[in-house]
């Protein structure tokens, strides 16, 4: 299990990184924390000509609170976000979801933006970003644009990111007054990717449920408030609409049941937290 050959470039500035990415076309891969890319390389499932290591670019290494959002740069590791002062206050859902991402020994290197870029349908951070209706900030040599999370994820490990674009940052809205959050997931073992994961967000006006691990990407839906009588039916509809996948670790039926049951518990828990 040894990677094929590639060139390596670790620029200090974003301009150099973007230029290199533009020049190589699809042959260059961004290397962030490497926690998803390295396994692909050692199994020779990816054969880039060049790896552009973005972790030495200072301008991308920051976590900033701006305009009602937490903006997390491309070079921010998951562990750094976990220990960001006041995270649980600024955005409880992020603080709840992060410990489910792999292990401390992978969060130490893996980045937040790398997880978004990888767009694994079972990953926690894409689910959290979607559930909070966050933004993905993309930049290429030519242009910069921001996409809503719902527009970014397009399928299993597929996104709206163009080949020459880097996720420069992602931003998660900060928690508002009177909001409640909950995060639940089922895995085969602690630290595994989720069979099904739930991010619930309840405020004064509405309740939302994000579901990961069930479909080809995370999905978010407005739900009746916990305690109202339509909830069961709405969960049931959501469970079917997701067209749950079936794999070695879980049947589609089981995933649907988790949407119905754990989805409800997550919403109820968020409602309780709000109070």
């Amino acid at each position, binding site marked *: 299990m040894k990677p094929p050959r590639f060139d390596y470039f670790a620029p200090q500035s974003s301009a150099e990184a973007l230029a290199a990415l533009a020049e190589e076309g699809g042959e260059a891969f961004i290397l962030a924390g490497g926690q998803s890319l390295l396994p692909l390389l050692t199994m020779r499932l990816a054969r880039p000509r060049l790896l552009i290591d973005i972790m030495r670019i200072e301008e991308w290494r920051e976590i900033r609170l701006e305009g009602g959002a937490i903006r997390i740069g491309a070079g921010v590791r998951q562990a750094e976000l976990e220990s960001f002062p006041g995270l649980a206050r600024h955005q409880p859902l992020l603080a709840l979801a992060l410990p489910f991402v792999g292990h401390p020994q992978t969060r130490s290197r893996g980045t937040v933006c790398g997880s978004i870029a990888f767009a694994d349908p079972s990953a926690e951070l894409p689910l959290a970003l979607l559930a909070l209706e966050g933004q993905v900030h993309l930049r290429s040599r030519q242009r910069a644009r921001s996409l809503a999370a719902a527009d970014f994820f397009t399928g299993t490990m597929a996104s709206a990111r163009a080949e020459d674009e880097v996720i420069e940052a992602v931003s998660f809205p900060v928690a508002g007054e009177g909001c409640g959050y909950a995060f639940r997931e089922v895995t085969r*073992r602690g630290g595994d990717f989720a069979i099904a994961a739930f991010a619930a967000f309840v405020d004064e006006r509405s309740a939302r449920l994000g579901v990961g691990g069930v479909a080809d990407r995370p999905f978010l839906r407005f739900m009746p408030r916990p305690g109202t009588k339509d909830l069961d039916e709405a969960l049931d509809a959501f469970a079917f609409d997701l067209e749950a996948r079936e794999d070695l670790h879980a049947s589609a039926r089981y995933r649907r049941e988790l949407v119905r049951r754990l989805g409800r518990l997550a919403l109820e828990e968020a409602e309780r937290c709000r109070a």
Partner: protein
Amino acid sequence: MEAKKVEDKSPWLGRSIGRLEDKALLLGRGRFIDDLGAPPGTLEAAILRSPHAHARIDRIETARARALPGVTAVLTGKDIEALTAPLLGVLKAAAHSFPIAIDRVLYVGEPVAIALATDRYIAEDALDLIEVVYEALPPVIDPRAALLADAPLLHPGLASNLVSDRSFRYGDPESAFAQAAFRVAIDTRYPRNAATPIETYGVLADYDPGADAYDVLSNFQGPFSLHPVIAKALKVPGNRLRLRSPPDCGGSFGVKEGVFPYIVLIAAAARAAGRTVKWIEDRLEHLAASSCATGRLTHLEAAVTGEGRILALDWDQIEDVGATLRAPEPATLYRMHANMTGAYDIRHLKIRNRVVLTNKMPSGLNRGFGGPQVYFPLERLMQRIARKLGLDPLAVIRRNLIAKEAFPYRTATGGFLDSGDYQGAVAAALEEGGIEELYRRREEARAEGRLYGIGFAAVVEPSVSNMGYITTVLTAEERRRAGQKSGAQATATVAIDPLGALTVKVASVPQGQGHRTVLSQIVADIFGLEPEAVSVRADLDTAKDGWSIASGNYSSRFAPAVAGAAFLAASRLRARLQRIAASQLNVAADEIVFAEGRVSARGNPENALSFSRLAASPHWAPQSLPQGEESALSETVFWTPPQLAPPNDKDEINSSLCYGFIFDICALEVDRVTGELRIDRYVSMHDCGPLLHPAMVAGQVNGGFAHGLGAALFEEQVYDGEGNLLTGTFADYLIPTVKEVPAPMVLHRHTPSPLTPLGAKGVGEGNAMSTPVTIANAAADALGLDEVTLPLQPSTLAPRLYGPERRRKEKTLARGRDAVRE
């Protein structure tokens, strides 16, 4: 209690002293196979493996790979075939088996070509450049399908995929079934799983054309009965195959037996290349093509009285060994032959054993070896009998256990259960394990609508395999022709150096079981020394050390056999030193005592010598030895127990030397929402005789429990219908982590074996046998299940947990933002 006695007599044995092995390991200074340097010019191997479960190889194009800078050679099956002979097997039907595919591949992962290069990275680059043209053939994955008349044949030389079909009959099962009030049957499937040590296989091989001899370093664990198989495959006499093991080995649990075909492959590659070749298996290779447990389909029926007394058993076992029958298979199917009635007094039985080939990785040794496959149906059946007859499952177990007075007990199939008090152990386990409290918890939980269950299993744990048991697969006539096999030689040498220090050598090859520590304790006690003063070598060099075919670390033979042999060797050496000391101290030999580094006359501590001075004297002044005394420089013992006879004409076989006992209780709860299993309490009662080192016994039990729990809940080598391996990485082949493994409550009785020098019995495999079925029984109790399939995935419990799913009104999913904003 016996453990007490050992402790009283002996200052070191029986105590959990710090292990001699640990300091280097903790400092990061272990010497595992990939830590030992290789000679200059060593080539590293990478192996190209089959992506097909069954295919003909039409052509292999290696020119581009060979042209890659850094690549020395690319070898295919034809190149290896030219240098080797087929791997010998137990049955003729082992067929024309080589460690690499010659013209057909039979499972995904089977070696197809080897690239040798200056480093592993380049060797893997070379694999990318090899082009293989396959012609796919229909695979057969399901063992029952493999038995069908029109099934694709794996080995065209064989008439069918059924390579062995034997029926056995003991007592009078037909009458017992005719008389019985009830007949209770069960069908089970035991999954193919693997113990997956964290260190993978490694081989470093060299060929000396001058002597026509191979020198191989490998983390092979034995049995060394495979040494002749390797030598024959390499076409050299046994004395031209030097097989060595590294000082440290990163776990095995049986699995590192399966490195032997790779030893042949890499050694032949070294010969072909004219250079030393090194191969360190990677995890993908390990999961696809090392070795795993057999899968087993069992139909088991019991003839039962109204009170739940079992009169007879009728076993029908189908063993899925994968693509080839590799030595020592079909041993998995026969290792339990002596104890096919478990812990129960059952006099009549029928057994039909079939061995079938399928397009999957070949099976081999794996912790529990045959035990999990037998106890899963047997102990599930006990619970089924209770359910069917409306009895308490515990009562059914107790009603059938062999009585204490019946020991030593001769089983219907010829086993000689050396010792035990099963009823006593069960009673103690229930009491100390708090069964009443668990019943109460179950009652409360159920009253609240929760799913709580309790399961039991009683298991006889065999240890020290009889080298002859495997031949039970042959008919008596075939056995006579092939030559009878028996015994279980254990070897130990205790030697003295010129400064009077002791070295112990055993042919054992540990993988973390602390052999060096225990042997140092034994020998230190005998000579009145500190364990640190004794040096122990447990690695093996077949060119220099004493060994025999039973050598190696398997069938839990260390404590009962190997440690016993060391005890005997040290005792003999001590007797000689006593005589030498007697002449120097002018007292009778039996007056000589060894204590605290000194040798003295009993009752007269003044009349003494230092131990090292006495021990060194035969080196320095052999002339001064007493008349008739040979030099006392070393003592080697080959020990084999006389109880291990070959199978007799009635196919009775005592397949193991000693038989420990285990009784397990599992209480668990199934989460109504998620179906996840949470173990509330796990109690494991062991009677493995006296404990030589209690902490190590605890380690074996805890480790075996974790393997058993993995088998119960997570682990299976899953193939799809086309024979693709779905569990080819550690992300899919799931091993329990610290979060999944609770600490079991471990209890002990200490009935010594009268047949082993130290009274000890094996303990390392028991929970691999007892735990999967105990958990399954608990889950069945919680959910009211009749059928339990391992591994118990929450997902598969869904229908039971949630009832039928209502179909919804038809509606399609609108993807994207609209769905989100609905």
